[in-house]
Every structure is written in structure tokens, then in C-alpha cells.
């Protein structure tokens, strides 16, 4: 057995548990001391991630990496050694050593237990069935998401537990197109945070989520739930979210006093010397905290105590939560009930606001649907301010903008940042943008819910001058895509030159010319005046330039389906023009590489196939699996549909390349879930439509837009989405950036819900498509005689060509 000393051979702090609490302790320690070695033991095989945002995995298929709290480099820069996928097996408090599951011993000066919690699972029959999941880790999210998508609209999921997490889980399941019922033990949702009035309004607002109250589940069966009164609920997926149970096993074995959690004092110390506990595994003054803000407060106090500073004691927290439940804003702080209160409620708008008093002092607030003044109210509650007239105070809070807030009003609850800190970052420390102020103060870097307010405060501090730079289409003239599109529409510009003349774009650097060329063509539905000087070389000669200046040629092979005759022509061309490399691409077609510019027209002629646009920001390929024709698993004609889609979209330019995929069953051989637009057959001619996926520099699983009932509808929805993307994404912005940026709700509204919008999109798509032409036909009619040729080397013969008339005017 080896004794591993921490870095530099010195003993240091060992933190057990790679969650929010464990990382927060590391961060707080580093703020006080940059030298003490810190080792962070993480049971999960990944760096600490933001568990609070875990439901994003459920809704959008985000990855754990995207939720990482700190990148790998942070750990290296701050000399924190993460041990991933390792568990502390035993702790010897007398010897000050911790032994890992692989036998390694870590010597520590202080040990911090941040082992978190486990989901509480009721001991009822059926809890171990395969379709029953807790809602806790990324694996759970993936399993729930998959199951919900598989069930789709034909079945139903049940969520046991109507607390905060349970409602999040329900929202995630609903986002997969699966109906969901929340069953809750008590008479109101989120009973720990809400009173009867607000819970009722929340339930009304959750119109598309079925809620059953006062339900005690007796048994889970393969068919669903059986309640104590004998009623049943059909459910093919059951998610259990009734609470958490502190993970105290290691602490108890080490000799810590435990109750519900590991008992700690105001310095987060356990009864063992040099052993601390923080977060959901710790019990402080009888409370186990599962919210981020209290846990971060604990981490700071713990780090202070380790550094020998016992003045920064943790004296408990006033619970505060700010969240969106099914699109409804909710803020609660402190107690939900008191001995006096003021309430304003409006059932028509779904707004509920309540200020709770105890003995004449502010004790809590509930804001549903309208969070204005939440910071002001929270400050009153934290200070236990005397409130002579609660209704006055409640109404006055509506008016409290950033300017009216006191400097000590806490803005970011996660990182404990006050308004004054943010103001000073701008006025004294030179932060020029909200982003810089956030990086300096760390406000808004937790759950992110306070970001809009942080931006307001930065603007206030800077005298209203500060905005985050928008995305400019033309960086040198600082004009956005929207501004330029408006100019083009208003003035009827049809060419890049006209825009350049009027707006000055493209003049100075040329970098925005391809973007302008796309914009002019898109706004004019391809009835623009084409100017090739504004296009990349790829779009001037319709091939992809290679490192040696030659080009690659990829003919259209819709859906990856070809014929012997096409293959024969490809082979003949490859031999005739001595093409150095013939390769099958990832998009199921054939690439001829190393073709000289001069040979391009002859190669296209020999192929007799249309351009595959493999060089352009355009619709590339729609990858397909064999589907129903030959495959013994195929549920639908994915190949036929893929070919149909590729032909329907052929020739259209897009802000960035668009790749499609159509899979004939959930085995997903066409990898449709990592395409910009993907379809997966789920049986009975039903198709799951996915958007925003990619497997390039970034890997992102596509979001489920909807599940549709026919092949025709699938094509319609995908086409509508494509056109929306064509019109509204920034140039070079892939769908995997654009979709999360604008949000699925917006896309669903434009593509699925607003019929008029969807039909208008399809009409503009039809117009644009009607004006497309195979660019490889320019082999017969080049736009300029020298489109594909360099200039001839001037020889003696050139002297005879001196008289050629006036200078030509150049290309059209």
C-alpha cells in the first residue's frame, strides 16, 4: 500500500465529492490560499458539473461537458488535482489518511466530506422495475429522455413527487412529446415553498401537465401505478422524485456523528478533528440544505475555518429559489406562511405576489408570474426588516428597478454578489461589458437566472452606454444582419455592389462579402444579381479548394443511393483525368480529389451528374439507412424519404452547411440524431423530427422538435424549419448554435403552432427553390471566359494581340 502525498510531497486538503459543494470548497480555499495542495476525489468519471441545470439534459439533450462548472484547465491552473472515477473507501481520522477504492492512501491535513445525497426511493413493490427511474444523475436523464421519446404521444409517463425537481422532470418528459402525470402526496405542489394560493395558480398554469394531488402510491407495476385507494394510472415510464437522502455512509464509518446528515457546527466541522462536511450530506442546526446558495455559503465558511478564520461562521440560510416551471417564473424566499401577509393575485394573468410577515418583520415572499422587485423583497426578508404596511411594501417593490436597489441588495444568490460589487466592477475596476463584469464578480455565473438584472446594473453603472456587442455581419462597418436585410428590402437591392455602395460594407476588408452575397440572394429568393467576386473561390468554381490549390468534386447522390451506370461514369472520369484520390465521404457519396481548376468543367461533363454542393454553405446530403426495403428491422422507407428530402432541398444555400439524416428505426444507422435536421421512424408511419445536432468540432445531440404522423408531414415540418433557419441564422452559424440560441419554444411557435407563419415560410421556400439551377451547368455557359482558367503565359504571340478594342467591362 502506498501513501500518496499531495502535490509537492506536502499534506493538503482532501475534498471528497465532485459536486457543486466539493468544487465550491476548492474554489473558496483557493481564494484564501494559492499554495496548499488540494485533491478533489470525484466518484463520477467526469469533472464537476452543474447538477442544477441537469434538466437541460432532459429537455435539449445537453451533454455533461456543456454543464461543466470549471474546465480542465482551471484545475491545472489552480493546482487542484481531480481524481475522477475514484471513491474514498475508508477514512482514518486519527492517522489523517483517506484510502481510495484502489488502495491508494491520501494523507490529509483537513478532510472535507461533500458526498452529497441520493434520491429517496420509497420502499414500495415495483420500485426496482426497469421502467422506474430516479431523477438524479446524467445517466438517469438520458434514460428518462430515451424512454419518453420512445413512448411518444401514444403512452404516458408518471412522475411521483410534485416538488421542484419532480416538476422539472415532468417538463423534460413533456418536451419529448410524451404526456405526463405528476402524482403528489400532499394537497399542493411544492408545499415546502408555496402556500395554497400560489400552488393552485401554478397548477392552473401547468395546463398541459396532468396533476393528481393527495395521491399515495402503493405499488408500481409494469402497467403503471396503483394508489392506496385502489385507483390506478397507466404509465410506461415512472420517474421518482420525492426528495433526497444525505449520503452519510463514509462519514458514519469514519466516526462522524450523523442524524439526517453528518452533523456540523457553524464552522462546518464534524465531531472528528480536521474533518468537515459541506452540502447535501451535512446537517446544520437541524437542516439539510439542497439549494445552491446555502451550499456556497457553507463552502465559504468551511474554507475560512480551514484557513483558521472562525469569524466567517455559517449561521444558516434563508431559503430562496428562483426558477422557471414550465415557462412560468417563480421566486420564493423565506417562509410561505406567517402571522400577517399581503397578497395580490390575478387569476387571468396568472400573477401571484405575496409578502409574509412575522411579528411585524418581513419573513418571506412568493412571486409567481411576475418577479419584479424580488431582490428588494429578498433583502427585506434577509434583514428581517420592519414592515409597517405589507401591501404598500409589496406594491412599492414593483417599482424597484436597479437604480432603487440598495448597494447591499444581493443580486446573485448563487455566488453571493451584491449590487454594489457589480457597480464597483464597472466604475472602479474597468469592466466595460456585462460579460467582463460577470467574469470579475462571478455574478450570474451560477444558475444564471440573475443575468438580466446584472446587465441592467452594468448599464446603470456605466450610465446606460453599455451593450454587449451584437453579432455583426460586417465587422468593419458594425452592421448587423437584420439592419442590412432591412436595407435590402427597403431599397430593393439586388446585388452586393448595390449594398456596398449604399452601406459601405464589403469595401474595406471584403470579409463580409460572402455573407452579404448570401443575404442578398436569400432576401431576393434567389432572384438577385449574382456577383462572383463576392463569393468564396469554392462558390466561383463549384468545387472545394484543397491545400495544393486543386479542387474536390462530389456529385449529388441523393440519400447515398447510386446506380451501376453512375459508378461506371465516375470510374471512367477518374481514370481519364488521372484523378489522384477517389474516396467515399462521410455523407454517403463519392469524392474525386485533386482535380485542377481547368479540368472541372470537363469532369462534370463526364460525370453527367448534378453538383453535390460539398463545397458550399448549402444543403449537403441527407444520409439514409436502407429502411424498409431490405432491412429486417426497418419500420419505414427512410431511404425513399431521405432521397425525397435531398431532392426537395437540392441547390439551396443556407447560412452554414446543413446535413440531414433519416433513420428507419431507433437503431439510427443514419445517425439522424447528430444531424442538423434528422428524422427517425418510430413506427406506423410516424417520424420523430430532430433539429440542431452535429458531430463535428462539437458533438451535440439534436433536439426533438416534434413527432409527426406521416411522411408528408415530416417533409413539411423539416422544410419549414429549414426555411426559418435560412432566414434567421447568422452567416456561418450552424443549426447546433442557432437552435439553442433562439430556443425550441420559438422554433415550435414559428414552425408548428403559428400556421400563418409556417405557411409563409414554406411559400418563401418554394420561391427560393424554384430559382435554383445546377451550378455545374456553367460548364457550358461560364459566367466569364476565364471562370476556370488562369491567364496564359504571355509569349511572343501575345504581341500580335495588341489591338483588341476598348477594355472589356469584365464579368457580369
Amino acid at each position: 500500500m502506498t501513501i500518496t502525498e499531495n502535490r509537492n510531497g506536502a499534506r493538503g486538503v482532501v475534498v471528497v465529492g465532485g459536486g457543486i459543494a466539493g468544487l465550491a470548497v476548492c474554489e473558496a480555499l483557493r481564494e484564501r490560499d494559492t499554495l496548499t495542495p488540494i485533491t478533489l476525489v470525484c466518484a463520477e468519471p467526469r469533472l464537476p458539473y452543474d447538477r442544477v441545470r441537469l434538466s437541460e439534459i432532459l429537455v435539449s439533450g445537453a451533454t455533461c461537458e456543456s454543464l461543466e462548472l470549471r474546465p480542465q484547465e482551471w484545475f491545472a491552473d489552480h493546482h487542484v488535482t481531480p481524481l475522477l472515477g475514484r471513491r474514498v473507501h475508508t477514512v482514518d481520522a486519527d492517522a489523517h489518511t483517506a484510502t481510495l477504492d484502489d488502495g491508494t492512501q491520501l494523507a490529509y491535513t483537513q478532510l472535507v466530506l461533500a458526498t452529497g445525497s441520493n434520491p429517496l426511493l420509497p420502499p414500495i413493490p415495483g420500485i426496482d422495475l426497469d421502467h422506474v427511474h430516479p431523477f438524479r444523475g446524467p445517466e438517469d436523464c438520458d434514460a428518462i429522455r430515451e424512454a419518453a421519446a420512445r413512448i411518444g404521444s401514444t403512452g404516458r409517463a408518471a412522475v411521483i413527487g410534485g416538488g421542484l425537481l419532480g416538476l422539472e422532470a415532468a417538463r423534460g418528459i413533456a418536451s419529448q412529446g410524451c404526456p405526463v402525470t405528476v402524482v403528489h402526496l400532499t394537497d399542493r405542489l411544492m408545499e415546502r415553498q408555496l402556500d395554497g394560493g400560489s400552488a393552485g395558480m401554478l397548477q392552473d398554469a401547468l395546463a398541459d401537465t396532468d396533476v393528481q394531488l393527495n395521491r399515495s402510491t402503493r405499488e408500481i407495476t409494469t402497467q403503471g401505478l396503483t394508489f392506496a385507494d385502489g385507483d390506478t394510472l397507466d404509465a410506461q415510464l415512472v420517474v421518482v422524485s420525492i426528495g433526497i437522502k444525505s449520503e452519510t455512509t463514509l462519514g458514519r464509518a469514519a466516526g462522524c456523528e450523523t442524524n439526517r446528515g453528518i452533523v456540523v457546527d457553524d464552522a462546518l466541522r464534524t465531531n472528528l478533528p480536521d474533518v468537515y462536511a459541506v452540502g447535501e450530506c451535512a446537517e446544520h442546526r437541524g437542516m439539510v440544505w439542497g439549494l445552491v446558495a446555502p451550499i456556497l455559503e457553507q463552502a465559504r465558511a468551511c474554507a475560512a475555518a480551514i484557513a483558521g478564520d472562525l469569524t466567517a461562521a455559517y449561521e444558516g440560510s434563508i431559503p430562496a429559489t428562483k426558477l422557471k416551471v414550465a415557462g412560468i417564473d417563480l421566486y420564493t424566499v423565506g417562509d410561505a406562511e406567517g402571522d400577517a401577509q399581503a397578497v395580490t393575485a390575478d387569476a387571468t394573468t396568472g400573477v401571484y405576489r405575496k409578502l409574509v410577515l412575522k411579528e411585524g418583520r418581513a419573513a418571506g415572499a412568493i412571486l409567481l408570474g411576475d418577479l419584479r422587485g424580488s431582490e428588494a423583497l429578498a433583502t427585506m426578508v434577509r434583514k428581517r426588516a420592519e414592515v409597517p404596511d405589507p401591501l404598500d411594501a409589496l406594491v412599492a417593490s414593483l417599482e424597484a428597478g436597479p437604480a432603487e436597489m440598495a448597494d447591499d441588495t444581493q443580486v446573485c444568490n448563487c455566488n453571493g454578489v451584491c449590487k454594489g460589487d457589480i457597480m464597483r466592477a464597472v466604475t472602479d475596476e474597468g469592466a466595460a461589458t456585462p460579460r467582463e463584469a460577470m467574469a470579475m464578480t462571478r455574478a450570474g455565473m451560477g444558475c444564471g437566472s440573475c443575468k438580466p438584472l446584472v446587465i441592467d446594473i452594468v448599464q446603470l453603472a456605466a450610465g446606460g452606454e453599455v451593450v454587449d456587442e451584437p453579432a455583426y455581419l460586417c465587422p468593419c462597418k458594425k452592421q448587423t444582419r437584420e439592419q442590412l436585410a432591412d436595407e435590402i428590402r427597403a431599397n430593393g437591392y439586388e446585388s452586393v455592389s448595390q449594398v456596398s455602395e449604399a452601406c459601405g460594407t464589403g469595401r474595406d476588408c471584403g470579409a463580409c462579402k460572402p455573407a452579404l452575397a448570401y443575404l442578398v440572394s436569400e432576401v431576393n429568393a434567389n432572384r438577385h444579381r449574382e456577383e462572383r467576386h463576392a463569393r468564396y473561390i469554392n462558390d466561383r468554381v463549384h468545387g472545394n479548394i484543397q491545400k495544393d490549390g486543386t479542387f474536390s468534386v462530389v456529385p449529388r447522390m441523393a440519400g447515398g443511393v447510386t446506380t451501376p451506370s453512375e459508378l461506371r461514369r465516375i470510374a471512367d472520369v477518374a481514370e481519364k483525368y488521372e484523378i489522384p484520390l477517389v474516396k467515399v465521404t462521410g455523407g454517403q457519396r463519392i469524392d474525386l480529389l485533386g482535380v485542377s481548376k481547368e479540368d472541372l468543367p470537363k469532369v462534370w461533363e463526364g460525370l453527367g451528374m448534378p453538383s453535390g454542393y460539398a463545397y458550399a454553405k448549402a444543403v449537403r446530403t441527407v444520409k439514409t439507412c436502407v429502411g424498409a426495403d431490405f432491412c429486417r428491422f426497418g419500420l419505414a422507407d427512410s431511404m425513399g424519404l431521405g432521397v425525397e428530402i435531398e431532392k426537395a432541398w437540392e441547390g439551396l444555400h443556407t447560412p452554414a452547411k446543413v446535413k440531414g439524416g433519416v433513420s428507419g428505426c431507433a437503431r439510427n444507422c443514419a445517425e439522424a440524431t447528430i444531424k442538423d435536421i434528422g428524422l427517425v421512424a418510430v413506427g406506423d408511419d410516424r417520424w420523430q423530427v430532430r433539429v440542431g445536432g452535429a458531430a463535428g468540432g462539437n458533438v451535440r445531440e439534436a433536439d426533438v422538435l416534434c413527432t409527426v404522423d406521416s411522411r408528408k408531414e415530416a417533409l413539411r415540418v423539416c422544410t419549414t424549419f429549414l426555411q426559418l433557419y435560412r432566414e434567421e441564422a447568422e452567416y456561418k452559424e450552424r443549426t447546433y448554435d442557432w437552435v439553442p440560441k433562439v430556443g425550441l419554444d420559438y422554433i415550435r411557435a414559428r414552425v408548428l403552432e403559428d400556421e400563418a407563419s409556417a405557411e409563409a415560410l414554406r411559400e418563401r421556400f418554394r420561391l427560393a427553390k424554384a430559382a435554383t439551377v445546377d451550378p455545374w451547368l456553367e460548364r457550358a455557359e461560364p459566367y466569364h471566359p476565364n471562370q476556370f482558367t488562369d491567364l496564359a503565359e504571355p509569349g511572343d504571340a501575345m504581341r500580335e494581340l495588341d489591338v483588341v478594342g476598348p477594355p472589356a467591362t469584365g464579368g457580369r
Partner: protein
Amino acid sequence: MTPTTLQPALTFACHAGDVPSGEGRAVTIDGRRIAIFRTAAGWFAIDQACPHAGGPLADGIAADCSVICPLHERRFALDTGAPIGHDGPAVAAHRVEVRDDGRVFVELAPVVELPAAA
């Protein structure tokens, strides 16, 4: 092949109509590969090979007085060959003269010795 020399250093390169407006084209003069550009600001000539990785500059995107290499988007001034927005080496720039009859002549600058490509 002997270049057509009118003055000691001025060489016939092409006719104006040979280069589409707003674009560049490559030509070989005295064994050197030269990119000739015709933009709204006039005619320019620089070496064809980008000093970074040998990209064909004539295939780049030209603005009034600059060009962006098609391979890795390094930008150069067309009149001086100076790098813009990066600190790589410059390309050689050559003087261009366009006659009334549309003939375009180039006066080659001395060969620039480049360090090994980065």
C-alpha cells in the same frame, strides 16, 4: 519563351477583359507566379503564393485594396503586399500599368526571400 519587354522591367501580362471585375487571376511572368487583381480601386499585382502555406492568392476574396487567402484567411494589402491583421511576412507587390488599349503590364518587384513557411 521571351517576355514582351517594352521598358527594361515592364512586362505584358494580359488584357483587361481577361480578369473578371472584383476578382484576381494568376499569370506566369518570367517564371514567377503573379496574382493580378482588378477591383473598384484599380489594378494590382502581388505574388500568387501566400507566404503562410502557399495558398493561391488570386483565388482569394478581394476587397477594394486587400485580398483574403482562400486557404486560411490571411489578409494582405493589394498595393503594398503588407500583412493585415496578422504578423506573418508580406508578399511582394508589383507595379501595374494599364494602357488605353486595355493591355495590362506589370513591373516585377525583386524576389522576396521568405523564411520557411510557419
